């Protein structure tokens, strides 16, 4: 085209450097990583692994840190969008989601050929799993890696029950995940990312990934989930910050079409991340993969100190948020 005269700033040097790195035989991704400078959305250094870290972002934490704070904010006439949309979600238990939990309970008791089910080890009503979800993701010593809830279920189902088809992205896994999470309702999220170890490493990696600009739009997760985007309209959506929300996942959700999926109206955090990636034209990660797990560790640790609230539902399935 003649009308446009494009010139590339900052041209070949970078590419040349990478060419050298890439031409090394068996060069692993890590080798190249050390030479790569990623673009990061601002704010990475302001994060802390606690729900109160929101003070450094939307500065609304004092209005939703607990039920009393929410009541006070409402009494003061603050609207949902003024308190980062966190003013009701975890207080109202979802009736809709009980449908999913019922299905999950049924899977929990589903017996294999030997008459074994999840309940055989974990108790008839999952007694031994109470509170467990508040500490997930965790480092699994035997596997030697950090696992999210769905990965733990996949491994357990496959090894203990011979259920090979309860993989991370299946309906059986997702509904089971929500049922198990519901056993931790009210338990305070506590992911230890302060002690040196795999969880801390995953947290820091997840934080980087959350703020790293990727995809065709050149967005970071943080592009939408930090101010000034937070509270503004993105078409019909009004994003919120990433603090605290992981305590409500898995969440009841009318899914966007994630191709080939049958998600039973439940979004695990892994589904949620993948859905966001799809909507912002990023490459969709594989659920339970190291990068997706790292992002979940970061998000869940950003809910440290907040009570788990399961089941809740996607805010816009009721008109409450419009009436506050």
């Amino acid at each position: 085209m003649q009308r446009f005269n494009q010139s590339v700033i900052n041209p070949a040097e970078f590419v040349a450097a990478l060419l050298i790195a890439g031409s090394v035989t068996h060069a692993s991704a890590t080798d190249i990583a050390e030479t790569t400078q990623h673009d990061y959305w601002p704010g990475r250094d302001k994060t802390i692994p606690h729900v109160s870290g929101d003070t450094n972002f939307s500065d609304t934490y004092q209005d939703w840190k607990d039920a009393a704070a929410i009541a006070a904010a409402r009494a003061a006439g603050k609207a949902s969008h003024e308190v980062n949309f966190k003013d009701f979600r975890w207080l109202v238990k979802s009736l809709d989601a009980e449908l999913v939990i019922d299905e999950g309970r049924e899977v929990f008791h589903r017996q294999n050929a030997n008459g074994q089910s999840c309940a055989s080890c974990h108790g008839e009503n999952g007694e031994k799993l109470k509170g467990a979800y508040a500490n997930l993701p965790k480092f699994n010593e035997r596997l030697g890696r950090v696992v999210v809830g769905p990965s733990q279920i996949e491994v357990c189902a496959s090894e203990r029950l011979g259920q090979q088809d309860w993989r991370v992205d299946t309906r059986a896994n997702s509904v089971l995940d929500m049922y198990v999470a519901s056993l931790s309702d009210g338990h305070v999220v506590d992911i230890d990312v302060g002690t040196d170890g795999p969880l801390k490493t995953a947290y820091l990696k997840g934080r980087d990934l959350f703020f790293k600009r990727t995809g065709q739009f050149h967005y970071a997760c943080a592009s939408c989930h930090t101010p000034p985007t937070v509270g503004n309209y993105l078409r019909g959506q009004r994003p919120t910050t990433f603090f605290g929300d992981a305590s409500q996942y898995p969440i009841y959700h009318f899914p966007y079409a994630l191709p080939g999926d049958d998600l039973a109206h439940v979004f695990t955090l892994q589904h949620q991340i993948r859905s966001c990636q799809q909507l912002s034209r990023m490459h969709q990660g594989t659920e339970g993969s190291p990068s997706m797990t790292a992002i979940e560790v970061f998000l869940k640790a950003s809910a440290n100190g907040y009570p788990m609230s399961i089941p809740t539902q996607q805010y816009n399935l009721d008109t409450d948020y419009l009436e506050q």
Partner: protein
Amino acid sequence: MSTSTIKARIQLGDHGVATVRTLIAHPMLIDRTDPKTGARLPAHFIEDVEITLNGIPAISLEWGQAVSTNPLVAFELHGVKRGDVLGIRWKDNQGKTDAGEFPVV
């Protein structure tokens, strides 16, 4: 309280007024064409819901195909007291039906 397809939450307030929130597990499928095969997929949706208070009609609903999956019915119930029984019954266009009774506690 629930049956296999109906969930109900009844919150009794002052002056015999209760807020009722009911959810029915149903796909509520619209009349549509399968994008892959081009085959016509028939609509499958709940047409009627009858809700009674102690056997007396309280509210009755008729729905078209455009009511969302797992439909929600929320309304205010009047003249209700502890121990009353809310009856909920639905029927879809394929003749399937379910019913449940939910005591007010």
